[in-house]
């Protein structure tokens, strides 16, 4: 296995709010499954799921050993790209990839 570093943001694959969480967790327990930019997928906690949708962009932060998601607005997303994407060329390609992904999803939605 090779350790890898990924960007601190990603796209929500699914999410739930657990109202009868197991022992050791407080209700309500917000859980999301997130696809990180860079490929990894993980389960994380958040402080709310209100306003969240499948496909929403969230920021991921580790607090201790636990990953937390928080919902990102358009401006937050733009900042995140700018801060994390390093060289100008990489920034542009990250933005282009994101736009291409959106356009592709729009096409799928239009077909179904």
């Amino acid at each position, binding site marked *: 296995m090779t350790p890898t570093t990924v960007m601190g943001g990603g796209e929500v*694959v*699914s*999410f*739930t*709010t*657990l*109202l*009868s*969480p*197991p*022992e*050791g*967790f407080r209700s309500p*327990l917000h*859980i999301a*499954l997130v696809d990180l930019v860079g490929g990894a*997928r*993980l*389960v*994380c*906690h958040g402080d709310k*799921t209100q306003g969240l949708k*499948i496909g929403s962009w969230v920021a991921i932060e580790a607090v201790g050993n*636990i990953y937390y998601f928080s919902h990102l607005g358009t401006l937050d997303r733009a900042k995140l790209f700018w801060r994390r994407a390093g060289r100008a060329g990489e920034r542009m390609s990250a933005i282009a990839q994101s736009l291409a992904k959106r356009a592709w999803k729009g096409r799928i939605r239009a077909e*179904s």
Partner: protein
Amino acid sequence: MRDVWIAGADMTRVGRLQEPLQDLMAVATHAALRSADRDRPDAIVVATMNPEEFLGDGNFASNVATHMGFANVPVVRVETATSSGAAAFYAGFAQIASGLADTVVVVGGEKMTHLPTPKVSELIGRSLDPYERSYGTTMPAFAALVTRALMARGITEREIAQVAVKNHANGARNPLAHFREEITPEMVLGSRMVADPLRLFHCCPISDGAAAVVLTAERATVRVAGVGQGTDALALRHRESLTNFRATQAAASAAFAMAGFGPERVDLAEIHDAFAPFELISLEDVGLFPPGKAGPATLDGETALEGRLPINTSGGLKARGHPLAATGIAQIVECVWQLTWCVPRRQVRGSVALAQSIGGPGTNNWVTILESR
């Protein structure tokens, strides 16, 4: 490979039962043997998911065989989480098909209603990936993540609710069912939220019970046409798709390949509706409906008792109940009873029945196809 036949089948009532698990499994076994007109099997296969922690009992195959009065009959225990019953059936099938035994009893049971619900949830939840579990993910949370993705794909709340409504209507006609009351879509959609978007009435109950079948090499009315197993990664984050279970698709394709025919010959099915939306996913995964069609078909009544393809005539896990390792065998018992005209008030017409069982978070799933001859 020899033909394998089901010569007898029986089960206990399902619900909150007072009897010890060993009693329930002995009652089911002896009733199944009586219905097969046999005194003693060559071998026994026992299915229990977790008697170590639910009951504090170990060495459970020997424990239960001794309790049944079969201390000298070879016995093994099989476990694949919530599909243990179906897996045990496969083990029994293999013993007959291979010629290792001529008469095998397969018996499954579970007892857990004596424990508090959070404890039971935690114990069942141990079948999930340890990392995901460390985030508080339980079976309902797993099912909720799947359901949310399913609804984004177009399945509606009404379609999901109708699964529970239909299965309760069937359970009301089954004297052995845990729940025997009919419910309405409004009751489902008004019930308390468990794991958004899943509500209480979308979820199967915690139940006790036992079920048994007698498999023989000697010809009987019902033949095992096909058995298939499918598996998938333990972690939800490693799945290719959230809205299908690869393990069910693989199990169905193996079972139909063995049977030598396709889903079009299936007349009725028992489907693993631990959570109501799982029935819709599973109907498509086994190939009984094309992708996206199971929901509308359910709303149209196609899967109701009087519909084109009756699903979960027993009431399913939702209404008959879900005594974990008993469930996979209870599904087969219902199929056998339907194929041999043993269930007044919910009898449907058919010669091919299918049972589908999900193990854990869809990691070890089974499809069994039965045919009356």
